[in-house]
Each structure stands twice: as C-alpha cells, then as structure tokens.
C-alpha cells in the first residue's frame, strides 16, 4: 500500500522569541503559585467557599480546557470515520493542541481536588461508584489523555528516525482512533450531565436532562472552532500560510453541528417552558443572552457563502464559538448555580494567574513543538522565522 503521508517538517527557527519568554514567565509564576496552593491549601489560595465549592479552576481549567481540546476528536471523526482526508494537514497541529489541553485538564483536576494525595482512590475497584458522573468523567478524561499521547507517536518516530515502528503502529491505529472518539463522546456529555443531580440549585435555563447532549454538541462545535482558531494563530504568530479553502470547508461542516445544537437548545427550552428564567434573575438572563448570541452570530456568518469566505469573519466566528462554549460552561456551573444564602464568589488573583499560566503552557508548548517536531506541512512561502507577519494579517495571505 502506498504511503499517503503528507510531508511534515519541523518549522525550525528561534525558540526564545520575546512572546515565548513572556509566556514562559507566566508559566513560572503559575508554578510558584501552585506550590503555594499545595502547601497552604485551597482555602488560602482560592476564593472558593462552601457556597461555591467549584470555581474558576473547575470551569475554565477542566471543563473549558477539555472542550477546547476537542479539535483532534472532531478531525478524527472527519478523517477516519467519514473518510474525508482533505483536512489531513490540520490533524497534527490539532493533536498537539488537544494533547496539551487534556493533559492540562487532568493536571487541573489534580490541582483542584482537596485531597490530592488520595487521588489514586478513584482507581481502586472497591471504591468505584458507577452512579457517579464524576467517576465516568475522571476515568474517561484520563484514558483519553493517554490515547492522545499515543496519537502523537508518529511525529516522535519521525523526529528520531525510528521509521520502522510506523508499520506496527499503523496496525493498531484503528483501535487508538476508535478509543479517541468514544472517550470524548462519553466524558464531554458527562461534563454536562454532571449538573443534573444538583436539581433546582441550577436555573432552568441550564438544568435539563439534555444538558449532557448539549455539552457534547457544543464541545464538537468548539472542536471545529479551535481548529480554525489555531490555524489562524499559526498564520498570525508563526507566519504560516493560510489555507483558507480548508477552513472554509471546515466551517461548512461545522455549521450543521452548530445549527443542530441551537435547535436542540431552544426546542428543549421551549418544551420545558424555561425561557421565563431570563426575567427572573437579571444576571442569569444577561449571561444567557450573551451565551446564545455568541452561538447565533457565527452561525449566521457560516450560513452566508460570502461571509464564510472572508478570513477575518471566519476567524471572528471561531473566536465567538470558543467563547460561546466557554460561557455556556460558566453559566451552567457557576452563574446558573444558586448557593445557600450569604455566599459570594469571585476568583482570587492566584486562581486567575494559575489559569493564565496553564493557558500559557499550551501556547508555549505548541510553539516549541511545531518548531522542533514534524507537525506542520512544509511552508510554501518563505517568511523569515520569527519575523512579524504582515500587518494586514489574515487577509493578505489569502
């Protein structure tokens, strides 16, 4: 069988660029603050309290980060299940992004649990609680992280010239691929189903038996969006060539998932007669509107053939969709949550800086890996490594 592997190669270039050093600094700060958290505890490091036992770390660093990590999941379905290979050049960068996201989400879970030294208890067979949505999420997210690492084996083999391992690897690839689709399907819906048990503590704007399905669909939407987003960032930050035709077709596929998401979302709200919730609590009402505007606006752009063809609008849509999924998760877990009276929560400086640091790890790691490992296709236009992209950004590369 003829190998159809597209050539990918390390970008090369200087690692220690100014943004890289700055972001690394943010990572270092986060590491220091994490030390503080482990020595002095959650109470000292965070503004969490017994009214809001879950805060920024749970929502941003576990829920949202994992959803942002759905790029590889979506591309795996498109490429290996729908057998549509036109997006192959996007797979490796998406895999890098997803692997970082899931590794960080698992790390964040470890940081957030109050009895971290006891984490292995979740793996002891006599402790298993199959009724617990959290159990399912924890196990699936951990396993999927391992699957993602395994999906990254080929570039490592290429980098170190161990080409002879490609063949046995490709023999089992179908198992890795299938696991890499089932596991996110399970835990991304689980991350939503998590809130069902809180019952009336969650506003009816988000509390629905369908929330698992909605989280899954929105994670798929975010998966599409993040591939676009990462693509645009490699254009802007690393001076790569923009493959607009691919992103346009990706948007064409993704809009159907987005449209189905919105249909289910509003059919469910209408069926449960829950839209009145917008009026009951102004903060929840406003956040609900922001959330859904962020979903709707990109849909309009993606439905319109001319707008969809515009690189700027496409990038804008991708940002909207990532934010939309993020706001949905913030709403369902924090804004829509009614604690017992007298508790308020706003993340502490430490919580924010740790979250920023974890996001910085992703950018720093991504940049390093694409420069040193064969992730991206060889560039067709030469732009001096590390040089700033043209000021007009996206459009000029089209």
């Amino acid at each position, binding site marked *: 069988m003829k190998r159809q592997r597209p050539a990918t190669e390390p970008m090369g270039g200087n690692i220690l660029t100014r943004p890289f050093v700055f972001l690394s600094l943010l990572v270092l700060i986060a590491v220091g603050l994490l030390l503080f958290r482990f020595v002095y505890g959650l109470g000292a490091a965070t503004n969490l309290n017994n009214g809001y036992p879950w805060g920024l770390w749970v929502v941003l660093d576990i829920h949202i980060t994992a959803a942002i990590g759905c790029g590889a999941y979506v591309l795996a379905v498109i490429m290996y299940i729908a057998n549509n*290979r036109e997006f192959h050049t996007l797979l490796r960068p998406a895999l890098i992004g997803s692997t970082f996201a899931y590794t960080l989400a698992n790390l964040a879970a470890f940081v957030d649990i109050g009895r971290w030294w006891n984490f292995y*208890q979740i793996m002891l067979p006599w*402790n298993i609680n199959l009724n617990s949505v959290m159990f*399912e999420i924890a196990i699936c997210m951990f396993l999927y992280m391992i699957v993602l690492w395994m999906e990254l084996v080929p570039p490592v083999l290429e980098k170190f010239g161990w080409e002879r391992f490609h063949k046995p690897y490709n023999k089992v690839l*179908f198992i890795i691929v299938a696991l890499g*689709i*089932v596991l996110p399907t399970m835990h991304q819906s689980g991350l939503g*189903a998590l809130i069902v048990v809180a*019952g009336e503590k969650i506003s009816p704007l988000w509390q629905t038996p369908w929330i698992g399905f909605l989280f899954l669909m929105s994670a798929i939407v975010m998966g599409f969006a993040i591939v676009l987003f990462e693509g645009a960032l490699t254009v802007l930050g690393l001076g790569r060539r923009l493959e607009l035709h691919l992103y346009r077709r990706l948007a*064409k596929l993704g809009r159907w998932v987005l449209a189905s998401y919105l249909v289910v979302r509003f059919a469910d709200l209408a069926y449960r007669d829950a839209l009145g919730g917008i009026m009951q609590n102004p903060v929840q009402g406003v956040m609900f509107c922001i959330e859904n505007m962020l979903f709707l606006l990109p849909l309009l752009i993606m439905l319109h053939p001319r707008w969809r063809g515009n690189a700027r609008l496409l990038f804008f849509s991708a940002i909207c969709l990532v934010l939309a999924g993020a706001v949905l998760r913030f709403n369902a877990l924090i804004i829509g949550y009614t604690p017992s009276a007298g508790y308020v929560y706003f993340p502490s400086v430490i919580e924010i800086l740790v979250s920023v640091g974890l996001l910085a790890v992703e950018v720093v790691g991504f940049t390093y890996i694409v420069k040193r490992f064969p992730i991206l296709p060889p560039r067709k236009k030469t732009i001096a490594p590390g040089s700033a992209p043209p000021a007009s950004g996206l459009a000029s590369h089209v």
Partner: protein
Amino acid sequence: MSIKRRDFLKAAVTGSAVAALPGPAEARPNLEVPPNAVGMLYDATLCIGCKACMVGCKEANEMPVESSDVSPIWDTPMDTSGKTKNIIKVYTDGTAEVKDRETDGFSFVKRHCMHCVDPGCISVCPVTAMRKDPDTGVVTYHEEACIGCRYCVWACPYNIPKWDFEDAFGKINKCEFCNHLLAEGKLPACVDRCPTGASLFGTREEMLEEAHRRLALEPGDTYDYPRNTLDDPNRHEAVVPHYVNKVYGETQGGGTQVMVLAGVPFGKLDLPEIAERSFASVSETIQHTVYKGLIAPLALLGGLMFISRRNIEKGGTE
C-alpha cells in the same frame, strides 16, 4: 462533498446520540426507606434557640469552637462548616415579635444533614466516600477514600456537606447522626441535650406518625410533648401552635430521615421545596440509560473500530 458531509453528520449525530440521549428506558425509581431507618423529628415551634444541641454536637464529635465574632467568647459559627456539623439559625421578619409567625415574627431552625432516603451526595461521590447504612439509613463520610472533589458540597440540595477550607489538608464535614453513639445504644448528642423535646429520636416511621399526630392537633389546645424519645417518661405539657400543615422531609427529594415541623413556611427556614423524585434518581436514570452494561459505548467503539480500520486500509494513515 455532500456525501462525505452526510457521512460525517451521521457519524457525529448518531455517535453523540447514543452516548448522550436521555433515552426512554425505565426510570430508576427513588430508593426505598431502609428497613430499620432511624429518624429525627425537629419541631421548630418547641425550639428555644438555646444551642445546647450545638454544644453537645461539638463535644460528641470532638469539633473545635468557631467564632465569627470580633471577640471570641462563644462558639458562633455562621453556618455548618468544616468545624460545625449542627447549627441553630433564626428567621426573623419585621419587628420579630411573635415566635413561629411569618410576618413580624421569628422562628429557629436546626440545620444539619437530613439523611436523605435517596441521597445526592452518595450518588455523586466518585469514590464511594459517602455511604448509607443499609439498615439504619445513616449517611456517613469516609475520609480515607475521599479525594476532595467537593461534588457532594456542590450537589446537596440542603447544602450540608462542607469542605474544611481552613485546613490545607482538609476533609468533608457533615452530621453523621452520631453514628458512633447509636452503635453504643445512645441517643444522638443533639437529641440528648435538647431540653424541650424539639429534637426527638426514634424510627423514621415513629417520627412520621408523631409529626402527623401533632399536625392533627387543634391550635390552642395542650399536648403532652415527649422529650428525647417517644417513650421517655420525662414529658412536658405545652400549648399547640399553628403548624404549617406539612411534614418537611416526608416526601421532599424522595424523603429524608430527619423531618421538620414549623410554624413558618419552610422556604423561610432554608428548607427548599423539592420535588418528590430525587435528583439522584433523575441523574442515575440518564447515566444508566446511556451506559447500561456498557452496551452503547462498546457498540460505538466496535463500529468505529470497524469503520476506521477499513478507512485506514483504504486511504492511509493520515
């Protein structure tokens, strides 16, 4: 292109539907009351707010005092917490003149674990650190298994389990019905210390009967109120108040083993009106419909392996 798109959509939608739909399978019903379910009846109209129960609780469970005051003179927690399992709170309205009246009145309320018949905390715990005694129904916490995820804190409809945020190596704290005292044939400390019989101990059935007996009384009449337990001879006579005509905990969220009577609406006492079907059963119905015998995920996995293998052979790896 359009065929490929359809394929993709099919895969995406059926895949996600299999794994995420709240299907029509048979619902998991509420759990049943355990055979020898213990019970507690708290009658807010009898409570004088002396907090002897709080002192008793702290002693029996070796909990330190906690002060929300500038000058720490008394044990004054603001809520149940990492160091407080039981608390007397007060509802006041307007001039707060009359006890157990909603407007211009006040009422005490004793808050601690309700020992749900179908507890959310047990359903959510990923490591089975919350357990319900199959015989007595007491809900206990087992720190040796706990990973500190605080899902129980987040999910409890009564906001009862509390994480000890003051301790860098903390744990969950909640009332365990003085399970260690029950084992010795003693009363829960709060009941034992209660001078007015506001907290009463017995079987859940007895407590429910007694509660309905009180609701059937004529306000203004006198009633011979028991202390500690129904058969304790140390009783006292008191005038029957205007009860809200409901036993809180009889059906709420599938019922609780701690039940409450009061003269003001329960919503004012932080006891929310909760549907009879437990949230645990709703959540588990969805979970087990999707994951029943792992059939759906395994079928999905098998299907995906088949398709991806074929596609990889046909089209190469990337």
